[in-house]
């Protein structure tokens, strides 16, 4: 005989009266601190401090210590010169160009590259991007993320931003997939599933795929254009909130409240953090490394066969006219479809050759962020959404890129920097 819902609650009521005793409820210091972190007046300063800690740790761990401290030396001063000297062929040889160094034209002469950002070979950039830069960024990110998660801060951050996110049809919980996406968009897209309605999931996936740069990308940005990174984040955040607001108005459906449990603060368990870090990082590497190397190969082949020049000629006017970026950005935009980190690295290469203004670098990095999700995210979206929603996401994405990209160009013209 199954019980009805009411009978079951009635039974539970009787059981708990028999077994549970509540003492006089008294707040502990821990409760009081927990309260401080969710009330807006005190919670917002705390959040500002926590994010400061997150970001400084990220920069110093990934940038100062590993990438600049050791990896740049290893790759630029030892690995690249060594390969340049022992790999058969030499500058101009197609296989050499694909695997080691494509070189670039300076004053009409083909010269060798100095850095692994410029060289663009499968064995140089293809290894430097994932192992020299991105790996450390991702480890730093997931380490901090796991700590915040296990300490119990993340759900409180969600409670804190609940009100703001309601305005764009999302719930405070959305901060979790958003934050997770700052590591990698793929698990971010998966993390939208507790959102209750299809509308919320659709909004969240679309916004994530468009406006949230992944850890790999941030790592490279931090290495290449640290002085622009504040502006880039600001631009993306405005886009996220602005387009969220608009999409919420035009997409039909409801956005109900999601009741969320907030666990108490606790000491994180080392083993739990280590295992999370390991699972997330190793998954990331499995996806990233083959795609980066494949990306190098495809872009290299497109240069060799002249396909890239043809595309640059075709799309150049559109890129220059609408977005204000040079035709050469075609190459990073194509690579960006495979891996965003690789693509930002290519912009770094273009920068070093001195063919872009600062504003063009800024615009193209933002464009890279928003113009298309990387292949892995794309596949994830296909799995998570039905066809109609998927096409909807793509359509909104194209619209957002053109509107926002054009807008940025316009603002640049008005400020006189474009």
């Amino acid at each position, binding site marked *: 005989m199954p019980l009805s819902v009411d009978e*079951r609650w009635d039974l539970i009521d009787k059981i708990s009266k028999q077994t549970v005793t509540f003492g006089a409820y008294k707040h502990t210091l821990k409760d009081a601190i927990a309260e401080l972190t969710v009330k807006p007046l005190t919670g917002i300063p705390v959040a500002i401090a926590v994010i400061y800690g997150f970001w400084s740790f990220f920069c110093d761990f990934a940038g100062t210590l590993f990438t600049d401290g050791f990896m740049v030396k290893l790759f630029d001063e030892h690995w690249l010169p060594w390969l340049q000297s022992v790999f058969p062929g030499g500058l101009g040889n197609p296989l050499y160009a694909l695997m080691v160094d494509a070189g670039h034209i300076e004053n009409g002469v083909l010269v060798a590259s100095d850095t692994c950002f410029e060289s663009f070979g499968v064995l140089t950039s293809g290894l430097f991007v994932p192992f020299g830069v991105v790996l450390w960024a991702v480890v730093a990110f997931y380490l901090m993320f796991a700590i915040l998660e296990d300490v119990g801060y993340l759900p409180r951050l969600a409670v804190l931003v609940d009100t703001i996110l309601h305005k764009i049809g999302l719930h405070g919980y959305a901060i979790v997939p958003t934050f997770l996406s700052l590591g990698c968009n793929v698990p971010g897209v998966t993390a939208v599933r507790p959102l209750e309605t299809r509308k919320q999931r659709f909004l969240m996936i679309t916004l994530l795929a468009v406006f949230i740069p992944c850890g790999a990308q941030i790592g490279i940005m931090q290495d290449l254009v640290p002085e622009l990174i504040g502006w880039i984040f600001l631009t993306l955040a405005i886009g996220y909130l602005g387009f969220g607001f608009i999409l919420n108005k035009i997409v039909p459906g409801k956005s109900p409240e999601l009741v969320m449990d907030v666990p108490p603060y606790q000491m994180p368990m080392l083993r739990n953090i280590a295992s999370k870090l390991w699972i997330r990082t190793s998954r990331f590497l499995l996806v990233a490394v083959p795609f980066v190397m494949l990306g190098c190969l495809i872009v290299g082949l497109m240069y060799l066969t002249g396909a890239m020049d043809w595309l640059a000629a075709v799309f150049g006017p559109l890129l220059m006219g609408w977005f204000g970026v040079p035709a050469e950005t075609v190459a990073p935009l194509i690579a960006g479809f495979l891996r965003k980190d690789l693509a930002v690295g290519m912009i770094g290469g273009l920068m070093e050759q001195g063919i872009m203004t600062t504003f063009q670098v800024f615009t193209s990095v933002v464009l890279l962020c928003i113009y298309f999700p990387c292949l892995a995210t794309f596949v994830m979206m296909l799995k998570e959404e039905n066809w109609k929603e998927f096409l909807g996401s793509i359509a909104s994405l194209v619209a957002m890129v053109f509107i926002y990209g054009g807008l940025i160009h316009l603002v640049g013209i008005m400020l006189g920097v474009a």
Partner: protein
Amino acid sequence: MKILLMGHPNVGKSVFFNRLTGAKVFESNYPGTTVDFMKGWMRIGGEDVELIDVPGTFSLEPKDKAEEVSVEMLEENQDSVVVCVLDASKVERGLYLALEIIEKGYPVIIALNMWDVAEDKNISIDTEKLERILGVPVVPTTAISGEGFKELVSRVKDAAPVKIEGIVTSVAASVRSTGGGESAAVS
């Protein structure tokens, strides 16, 4: 035999899972969905037993995709023992899910997790009495510090299906013996 780990979201289930299994855990994908769950092995009485961390669910009437998967996983594993993880400071809420699972005829063992939090909040639970009423093993645990896990593992063998009618009768008996009012232990 398989063991399913079930409970509300945020009752410390993933730490719980980590406490019970060895280093080798697998994250798998539930076929046809993007819901992931963890799978690992634990040793009970010298025997390797598969442990599945079912996605958190509030009840067996699913409200979202992840909850649907939880219910399906329960139904697919008819021969398993269910370890039901409850938040000890919110026992009533967790008991609802536990009773639903008991009604479906699964052998259940209840873990009153976050026991330390309940203590912080001056909530005390008479676990022996709860065990007598329900007829299933009840063990207080604190996943973060590992307290209670040894007992939990040793008591998995005691889990057996019980009839809901039996629970209804034993509650009634218990109410009669304490005079029907609030628990006698109110201080």
